[in-house]
């Protein structure tokens, strides 16, 4: 019996779901091993009978929390999909500001009191609202990883997601270390699994798959000094995808 899979999205750019559509011919292979019963972006059909829910996007409104909790009740397995869902992603950049301030800045003095579309709260990752069983990290997650997790779920095994830094994959690709080129890269503390795609394309890692552990201050100070980089640059680098660290400081 093929497991029934449903895709959902909240506050996101839908890039993660597009990655699934971008499996191209393999999408047809995918539907051989799972039954996709809901995927709003490409399907009209929808069913509330699913085993696995794959959720993209952050949760930013009470109406979204309600929708998510309903999904969690129905699904046996819930997978957080993409940076917005797993770690909050870019959506959290605005969290330091109060929701009222934010609404006022964007929409002006209009009173949206009863309009639930506009009732926003701080952006949250999915596991800040419901229990998450598995994570697919990345912005966007690599197609290989999406396949890997779905196949693992079908085979009944725990997906093997790396808990080691991007440097491992970057060095295996024999890239020139971006620190040697005077750039600040989060590679040493960011989770791997993306095959170091950003440094391989000449761009410093921004940690979109999450930070493994905060580095020792001693360590960071030394590195910044050696490569003549500013503390501010480092701080800002963290905050693009990993705002939680900033909030806890």
């Amino acid at each position, binding site marked *: 019996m093929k497991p029934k899979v449903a895709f959902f999205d909240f506050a996101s750019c839908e890039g993660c779901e597009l990655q699934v559509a971008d499996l191209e011919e393999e999408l047809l292979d995918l539907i*051989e*091993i799972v039954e996709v019963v809901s995927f709003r972006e490409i399907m009209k059909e929808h069913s509330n009978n699913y085993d696995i829910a794959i959720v993209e996007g952050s949760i930013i409104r009470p109406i979204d929390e309600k929708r998510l909790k309903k999904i969690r009740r129905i699904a046996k397995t819930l997978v957080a999909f993409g940076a917005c869902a797993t770690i909050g992603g870019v959506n959290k950049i605005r969290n330091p500001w109060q929701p009222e301030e934010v609404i006022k800045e964007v929409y002006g003095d209009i009173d949206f009191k009863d309009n639930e579309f506009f009732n926003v709260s701080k952006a949250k990752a999915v596991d800040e609202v419901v229990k998450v069983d598995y994570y697919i990290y990345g912005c966007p997650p690599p197609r290989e990883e999406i*396949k890997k997790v779905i196949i693992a779920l079908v085979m009944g095994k725990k997906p093997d997601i790396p808990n*080691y*830094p991007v440097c491992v994959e970057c060095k*295996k690709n*024999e890239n020139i270390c971006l620190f040697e080129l005077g750039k600040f890269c989060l590679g*040493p*503390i960011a989770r791997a699994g993306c095959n170091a795609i950003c440094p391989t394309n000449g761009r410093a890692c921004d940690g979109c798959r999450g930070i493994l552990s905060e580095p020792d201050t001693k*360590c960071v100070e030394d590195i910044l000094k050696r490569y003549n980089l500013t503390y501010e640059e480092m701080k800002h680098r963290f905050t693009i995808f990993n705002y939680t660290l900033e909030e806890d400081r």
Partner: protein
Amino acid sequence: MESSIKKMNREDWADFINNLINNSTYEVIGVKAKGKRFIFAPLESADELRLDYDTTILPPKKYFLPQYENLLSFDLSKQSVNIEMKEEKRIIIGVHPYDIIALQQMDKVYFDTYIDRFYKIRRENTIIIGSNILNVSERSFATSMKAHTVTSGYDLMVTDIGSSIIIEIGTERGKKLMERYATNITDATEAEIKKIEEIVESIESKDRKLKVDKENIPNLLKRNYEHPIWRELSEKCLQCSSCTIVCPTCYCFDIRDEVSLDLQGKRIRTWDGCLLPDFTRIASGEVFRKDKTERFRHRFYRKGLYIPERYNFIACIGCGRCSIACIPDIAGPFNVINKIAEDSEETRGEIIFEIPVTRGGEEETAYIPRNGIIRRIEKLTEFEKLFEIELEDSIDFNYQPGQFVEVSILGVGEAPISISSPPIKKGSFELVVRRVGNVTNKLHTLREGDKIGIRGPFGRGFDVKKFEGKNLIFVAGGIGIIPMRSLISFILDDSNRDRYGIVTILYGSKTPRDILFMDEIKEWEKKEDVIVKLTVDTCPEGICWDGCIGLVTSLFPEVKWQDIENTVAIVIGPPVMYKFVIKCLDTIGVKEENIYVSLERRMKCGIGKCGHCQINGIYVCKEGPVFNYTEIKDLPEAFE
């Protein structure tokens, strides 16, 4: 006599390279520029070749032990396995002497005990054209490691002396290559040969100098296990493992199964690094080298003490790559050794490191599992099941109690499982498996008649001959009883019983529900001169239990010990148990050399190559899992 040192002018040398690229069947790899660094990569023409390089980002090891290597392919829908070993013929041009030496070191490892077929085929099919160093890397100290020149290990050795290219012939194969693809080769003159010496000397003078003789490094490390430098530097360590990836003498690897959507899959071998926190993690979640300082220090000891003890060479050739790659700049052995050497009079923490002698062998391996059929399954507890396995092929499967196998499930992976049945019955053996991770959980879903893969038996088991004529104390904690059963059943079997003395079995479990093999235990108890004492940590309400409650150590006072001088003790249990049990054994008078333990670590390859199971420098899969206590009692990483 024909000289083995030749010369060519620059144009003819370029023609030779271009000829190799365009007209030979070899893939021609050479050193070329990548930005302001250098790499080994396929050459498209001779003018890409840069013999004046200082060092490459990755060493040539990537051509012999690739970053990602396909060990075997399988089709899950058909449950079939396919092994393809491509014989890629290559020429690598420009290999520095230190990298050649590193390859020779790698040979010793990969041709040791279990010869790695993949590595072997690649070595045989690759021609090495070495190049003497012309520009010293900033972080190099190869001279101090006596690795800046080399007299063997190459098919040809090239020195660019400016006016011409001098080529030393190393092998018949190299000679034939020149004869076939090069023209205008003449003998080098005395003056030209002298030029090579001058170049080597200039390297020696530019290279950084270690404060100690390289031969003293192991000694230095032996006396400085607690040197403050380990903590001082490791505080800055990012645990990125870049140092191990770029190192020519690092070769630890992980093995993973990958499956694609069409249910085709591969078993992949990929580089792993001991700096990574999960390097020693086992399925139940335990991590054996938890502290960052321990992992940081381990790398230096592996290269400077453990491997030298095992293979007689220092596993560092002074290329400086790790120094360059390390962002906080703490990885380079140069500074570390020099700093320790400065206070060379003091001893800061000693480590006694000796490798137990185990059997050698010349078996070739390609990591292919044998097919095993599940003949019988018995559910023992909520988490444990017994599997009786019969191997499909008719090749003998001889093992000792205490050995283990790697159980392979295609698409999921491999797990090390101790053999639980005694080596008495031919034709099949038993595994008792606790479900904790992916492989064991999958195994629990299988049915009689299903097939699994078996590799092994691996490891050093119990030498039952040594126990003859002795009294035996078996102390088992939790699932330690599983491998213990193999030994106990063997000893107590009617055909063996009279060769052994009094048998005392002390077995502790978490709760009565977790006790394994209760029926057999009752049979054991019935035998002559067999004492059995059971205990549980706790007894939940509602369960009937009239035995002891308490740790297994609380059973010791319950026994009237006799003839202790002639008694051997075997202890198997969770890591935390050993210290306490051994104390008890000491209290009752069992000599240290009469205590045997079986230890668990993360065992992946099973053959002493992947590096995951190390206790300091000892491979649990090779020198263990069974150890005599005296062999490991002083090893810092052996017991918690």
